[in-house]
């Protein structure tokens, strides 16, 4: 690595640009890697929105990175914010992480923050990403990253509008086993791919709840800001179960068992078959409560089958071609393959993929690198949007209980005004992008 110092540090830029103007990192690529140490002035300054259990997991990936400095956390739930602060402060051995309760205020005040980690519930993912990017931040957004096709499109437009780096939490796109399977499909080693199979969550259903849990007294706003927790979703009375994670399975807050894992597996499948910038066009209804066995078809004729079983771990994928198949899921020591000889190329395939795409096998590292290089990360806004569009259309197929066709260019269903009604949901004021 070079011993040269960057010609203009990010903080130096800040000084020249004015103290109140937030600015992106200034590519300290020559600095990073010098004995693995990064001076504080060159670190990427991070803030968090809605850091819960999943967020703590992400923090554990992010905090050890030498070029990351996490400085603040915002959450409408005081206890969650405090827990995240504790993780961060423990890591840094200080008490410096600041707490915020109100997202607009947090984004407006912390102009020093370069990037945001957003691990809210599903209902807030798109809005948080849009608000952060509009405020000039890059963002790592957990999945499922949008509730509707319209939300996904708004995320895409905002990222492109402001030139922000967006990475969705589709970590399996940066894991060796999955990357190997994707490359086996992409490189033609499986022959002509005809079918891919995507794991959907084996709990909950495609049908979602619309009941309200019994009303409970509102806690003090400083403990739980219920209005902010609901965000753009329809109002409903407070019940502590929601904020403890019981929001899953409710139509207003969740994208069903299909979105729960499909957010990962559809993206992997679509990347593997070169359909990451489009969505499936045909959705064939299956008469069950989960979508298990639904066949979707892409414009290139490749089928993607939704499956609840067939893997030994979570979030599995399987790619089938005329000359073999590969499959993997979380926890596999190595991918399943139709011919053991395929595995002899594991290191080469993954290594070549990394060399060709300049992407590491670390989802968070890929994001951090792209913050500096301004390149698109592996799960950029379009990869997120189009794979989630397939999720949404599959849900609509189940909700309408019939086959549907979707046009991924017009982003509407084909001659199907009833299905089009599901494409967007009016957002609750003032949580409107």
């Amino acid at each position, binding site marked *: *690595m070079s011993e040269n110092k960057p010609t203009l540090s990010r903080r130096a830029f800040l000084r020249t640009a*004015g103290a109140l103007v937030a600015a992106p990192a200034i590519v300290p690529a020559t600095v990073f890697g010098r004995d693995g140490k990064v001076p504080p002035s060159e670190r990427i300054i991070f803030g968090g929105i809605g850091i819960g259990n999943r967020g703590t997991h992400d923090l554990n990936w992010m905090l050890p990175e030498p070029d990351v400095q996490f400085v603040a956390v915002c959450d409408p739930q005081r206890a969650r914010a405090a827990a995240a602060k504790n993780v961060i402060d423990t890591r840094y051995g200080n008490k410096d992480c600041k707490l915020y309760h109100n997202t607009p205020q947090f984004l407006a005040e912390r102009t020093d923050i370069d990037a945001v980690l957003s691990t809210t519930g599903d209902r807030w993912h798109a809005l948080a990403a849009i608000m952060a990017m509009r405020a000039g931040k890059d963002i790592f957004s957990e999945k499922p990253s949008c509730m509707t096709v319209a939300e996904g499109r708004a995320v895409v437009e905002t990222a492109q509008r402001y030139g922000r780096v967006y990475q969705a939490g589709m970590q399996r796109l940066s894991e060796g086993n999955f990357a190997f399977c994707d490359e086996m499909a992409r490189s033609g080693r499986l022959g002509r791919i005809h079918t891919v199979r995507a794991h959907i969550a084996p709990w909950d259903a495609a049908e979602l709840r619309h009941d*309200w849990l019994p009303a409970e007294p509102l806690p003090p706003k400083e403990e739980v800001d219920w209005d902010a927790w609901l965000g753009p979703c329809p109002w409903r009375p407070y019940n502590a179960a929601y904020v403890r994670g019981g929001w899953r399975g409710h139509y207003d807050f969740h994208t069903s068992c299909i979105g729960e894992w499909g957010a990962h597996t559809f993206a992997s499948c679509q990347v593997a078959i070169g359909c990451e910038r489009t969505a499936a066009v045909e959705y064939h209804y299956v008469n069950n409560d989960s979508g298990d066995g639904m066949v979707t078809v892409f414009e290139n004729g490749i089928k993607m089958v939704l499956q609840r079983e067939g893997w030994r771990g979570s979030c599995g994928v399987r790619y089938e071609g005329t000359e073999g198949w590969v499959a993997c899921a979380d926890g596999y020591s190595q991918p399943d393959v139709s011919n053991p000889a395929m595995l002899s190329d594991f290191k080469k395939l993954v290594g070549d993929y990394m060399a060709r795409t300049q992407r590491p096998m670390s989802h968070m590292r890929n994001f951090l690198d792209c913050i500096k290089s301004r390149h698109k990360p592996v799960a950029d806004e379009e990869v997120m949007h189009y794979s989630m569009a397939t999720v949404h259309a599959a849900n609509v197929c189940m909700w309408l209980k019939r086959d549907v066709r979707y046009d991924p260019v017009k982003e509407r269903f084909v001659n199907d005004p009833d299905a089009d009604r599901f494409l967007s949901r009016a957002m609750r004021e003032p949580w409107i992008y």
Partner: protein
Amino acid sequence: MRNKQILLVLSAAVILAGAMYTPAQTVPPKQEEGKLIAVLKSADATRKDKHDACRQLALIGTKAAVPVLASLLGDEEMSHMARYALEPIPDPAVDAALREALGTVKGKPLVGVIGSVGVRADAGAVPQVAGMLKNSDPLVAQAAARALGGIGTPEAVKALEGALPGTSGDMKLCICEGLLRAAEGFVAAGKNPDAVAIYDRLRKLDDPHQVRSGGVRGAILARGPAGVALINEYIKSSDYILFSAAIRASSEMPGEAVTKALADGMKGLSTDHQLVVLGTLAVRRDATAMPQIAEAAASGDKAVRLAAMKAMPAIGDASAAPILLDLLNDSDRDIANAAQENLAAMEGPKVDAAVLAMLDSGQTARQLKGLEMIERRRMTNVTAALMKATADDDEAVRSAAIRLLGSTAGADEFPVLVKLLLNAESASEIRSAEQALSGVCSRQAQPAAGGLVIHKAVYGAADGRSADVTAKVAELVKSGQLSITASNANFGDPAEGTVKQLTVDYTAGGVRQTATVAEGETLTPAAAVTPKPLLDQLVAALDKAQTPQKAALLRVLRSTKTPQALDAVRSAARGEGAIADEAVSMLCDWPTAEALPDVLKMAQTATDERVKVLALRGAIRMIPLQNISEQDKLAGLKKLLPMVQRNQDKQLLLGALGNIASADALAMIMSYMDDPATKNEACFAAVAVAERIAETDKAAVTEAMQTVIKTTTNQALTRRARQVLNKARN
């Protein structure tokens, strides 16, 4: 009574709303609209009832529902749900209602109404919304700015541009957002000059930085090919915001002109900026940039050189190969290593040709690098070149070439490889030839019927719904099928509606193994056998070989695990000298149970104590490999007991007993529990057996697991023992 009346007008879905679960997203029949409207008009309907009615109307509502929904827009409790229903209704009456509401509702509901006007892009609302840009409520003014951008007419843009001067903070950002949205609309409509005008204005602002970035991107992209001029301008900018925005925008523009702007513009930039440009060139994968990238790789700042080399496999152009080849010998080790890494990652026949040419260079270091590249790139069709290299003057080159032939050569080259082994002059060459011959034997092996025993086969789902199909699989194997398809056609359907798996526990070629395939796949439980002609050549060569080569040939034969190989090793073991010692060791370490009679005999009769020990250990290992009953295996191990005196042998015995699922084996294991030297292995073996017999030998398992729990200090093993104990007690 009134509640009863409400129930009469609610649809079934609405009736169930409230505390009960309701799949409310199901589209209600269109004729339900009147009933849903009635709910909204009812004074007795709860807020939940009305929310549900709005949600249903969002799916089936028409012009008929607009008046009642419009009447709720000023109601703080219902305003959002009224818009929730109104926004997707494709009727101009909705726009009229929202426009009217713009003049009547206040506060947060007004913010929402403005937002819906923007979503529906109602051009008729521009005058009203524009008037709200100066509203004293910042949320209203900001919503108006964004909505005007969504509407995006020239009038809307004019209002936004007029409001921009003098603003700051969130309001300025929202006006800029509106302008950016409008510009995107112009581009979508093909009105690029109008968009360019907006983008040009925004890129020249002092702040916010993200708006300047957006302005630069839009100004470049909206100009089309003419946008290259801006890339040329901004690539030289010392303002990182403008520079990075232009480079990022370039990645959205195809074409050699853009590539040229980046490649030419890179020279003279700071290191950091060059790294960004090189990364972008890599992503573009446009080979026209190769000359500039090659120049960057050749000399100068090390970080830039490394980035330039890294870009080469990404671009994938063969012209990079000779450049990287040259850099293999760079005096800087990091550069040389990077050249090697990136060369290995490059694809294509031209790169392969460049690598092969290295073998003809006459330079040993280069030849060895070339051979390494062949291996790392997993190149095929290189046998002829490798064969040629086996005659090289340099031993290291010869040795590497011979070894590589093992992964590329076929049956045709086998005689030459045998000859190379016989003529090998050094230990290194012998080792390489041995590896090569073993490699060919392995790759040429074919599945063969016979010697295949099916122990257990199960077809079913992960949830436990499964069928024992051992007999069926055995029948298929007996009929001559080497590959078994996991299908309902073969095995019926024990778990309808799920993807099933076939798991087969079998012994093939003396080796016991388990394989699992998913429904629709095939499983080939046959042993792979090296073709006889290859074995014949190896055996024939034994007579001509000198001692080291003969030992190598025997090791190759052992790797094939065939009866013919076993015979050859037996024959050698009967001889004298070093080769006989080597052959005896091989017999004791034979991978299948076929050598059991030999090792049993040696264990009992050998005069050499070392041989006795090796033979005993071989027997302990081989007995469980036999295709005989568990009781017979146990009996076989029991016969060895008088000879099992050393602690290490006892531990091996316990390992073998752990594979035998019987109460007798468990009892035998338990007898080793009191000896400190064997108790750990005994605990592991006891749990392994108990897990398999917990349901059939409950009393013995219960007693054994209680002992294990008291004896072991291994927490994981304790957990397993407790689980088995619980199973045995239930």
